[in-house]
């Protein structure tokens, strides 16, 4: 996934409830567009930016949220 790419988040329903709730509280919801700022090697955490705030997420959470939407290719993504 390309750094500085705009990515739309999906699949909040696939996350554990507390994780999804915390993301909601941080203003991240289904369909939110975020900017990918940083990725760490070996599937380490990722830093994203949304509404002027930087948030670090575990790679697993990030990869669930950025899977292509069910049944169609997502326009903003370039590396699937």
């Amino acid at each position, binding site marked *: 996934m390309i750094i*500085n790419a705009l990515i739309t988040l999906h699949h909040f329903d696939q996350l*554990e409830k*507390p*994780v999804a*709730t*915390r*993301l*909601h*509280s*941080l*203003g991240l*919801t289904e369909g939110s567009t975020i*900017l990918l*700022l*940083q*990725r*760490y*090697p*070996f*599937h*380490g*955490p990722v*830093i994203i*930016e949304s*509404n*002027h*705030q*930087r*948030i*670090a*997420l*575990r790679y*697993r*959470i990030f990869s669930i949220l950025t899977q292509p939407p069910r049944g169609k290719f997502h326009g903003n993504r370039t590396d699937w």
Partner: protein
Amino acid sequence: MEIALIGNPNTGKTTLFNNLTDSYATVGNWPGVTVNPKAGRLKGTATDLIDLPGVYALTPLTKDEEVVTLYLLDHCPDLILNVTNAGQLKRNLLLTLEVREFGQPMILDLNMMDEAAQQGQHFDLAALSQALGCPVVTTNARTRRGLAQLQAQLQAHPQPLAPLKLTYPPQVEQALQQATQALTNDYHVPAPLARWLSLQYMNQNQVVRRAAAFRNLQPLLEQRATYDAQHFEEQIFNTRLAFIEKILAHGQQAPATRAATTVSHRFDQLLTGPWLGLPCFILIFWLIFKLAFDWVGTPLSDGLDALLSGPVAANVNHWLTLLGALPPLRSLVVNGLLAGVGGVLVFLPQIITLFACIAILEDSGYMARAALVMDRLMQIIGLNGKAFIPLLIGFGCNVTGIMAARTVEQPQARLVTTLLTPFMSCSARLPVYSLIVAAFFPHHQAAVVLSIYFLGIGIALLAAKGYQWYFHTTESAALIIELPNYHRPRWDIIWHSTWDKSKGFLHKAGTVIFAGTVLIWALTSFGPTGFVTDPTQSFAAGLGKLSAPCFAPLGFDHWQIITALFTGILAKEVITASMMVMFHATNQTVLIGALSNYLTPGAAYALLAFILLYAPCFATLGTIKQETGSTKWMLWSLVSSLAIAYLVAGLINLGSHWL
């Protein structure tokens, strides 16, 4: 009158609290700094200001977050000051709506206005106030802008406000009305509170659900499955979000700059870069270690120790002799009480230095990044990056490491971190390592000592896996961390934070160290014949002789060594001194010679491992009790480490016979 400060983490709430009150609370640019509520007196008034932990919503995810909901239910403050980060107003208002629905008088404070201005955001305060039905003020707590006006508002008598009533989707509204009516009619709950309780119940607020079950509020309990099946919590969230977007649509202008171009982002490119992040982290913590244990802390600690055990002790002894005090009394004062006070005080310079450095990292915003950089490694043992810092500090001193575990948000992760920290080989164990490796492994000293450090890490990793299994810690403790903007640290905040934490150490852990010192003094000064001047005739020596056979499987069953290990529970530094007394050695060379006659190299390595693992010192035990609030966990730490040490040392000794 009581005013409660409620807000998201990183909104400058505690800075505001420190500015508004005469007393202070710990502050940090790092989520979870206010772990427990702190109270202060509003300057020049008799009003209490309560600083509650930062929460994103009233629906708690962690035990710390429950504090806010429980506080609202139990205390019902006269006024709520809702502090928000103006730069992140949209998500901050989610909590604001919940608090406004609660219905107590409230003032909304848009704090950190400088950040909002940098982002090119402006707000129509009048429109915001009208939409939310409460007064709105703006402040910048770090530069103290707007505080006078806020203080005036807080001192005025709070005006009653009608609770905010959002229009939820029809099915939610219908369920709300039914539940509210039933609670009002059958349980005599006031209508506004009944509506709020019902809403929170539908929103899966576990504190409210427990309270409803406890009070047997049937109208809610009966409908629980229906609420959850229809995903009322999602509908509630979406309604609130839509309301916020609507009220912000007018006042908020499109941002002029993107965060990616800010100074914070440029700092982050260096400090949290994928390849430079780790070296930067190592450099920063290396500097902190050097400051605390090499350049500032230890020299001051040594100086203080020399002063207390030298001139002060000699003078006190001299005056007691002149006053005609009996030898046991003199010994109690000089070797017991004074040594006890010294045992507490000598830790203080290191602790103050370390806490000051941590406070700078917290206030500047780096601490959140440190957790991020270490997260991948900690993920392997079921913890997140925040747990790494206390463990690292534990290599310097376990006491300070455990105190630093306060920064870990999740209670379970904090507990596990606290229990793992004693396995980190603290600097106090180094003198006895040096002694033993000089006696048995003169040509491989550094390698042997290093292997002991790694043994500690290995045991900690295994223990972490065990705790992970025991607590069933899963990805719910996963790292989701807000990275706040960097700030230039404010010295008054650093000082307050450092002093507050150090004072806590002195008050609580100090009492255990003091009591422990006096106990060891008693054990080494008294024997079956009464007061003894020769420690080899003391109860401690007797205890060593009695328990020596138990240590036979470990390869070191000499009562002198066992007695020294007993005294080592007081503080690991004491082991060397105790061995010298017990072996009648006049200096270390004599002691090294004596030891090499008694032990084989295999048994010596087993002894090294045993010293690493066998029991946290009194100070560490006291701190574990203080931080976990439980004697049970303190005892568990003592017993489990003793068992592990016995097992590991036994295996090493057994292995050495085969080699």
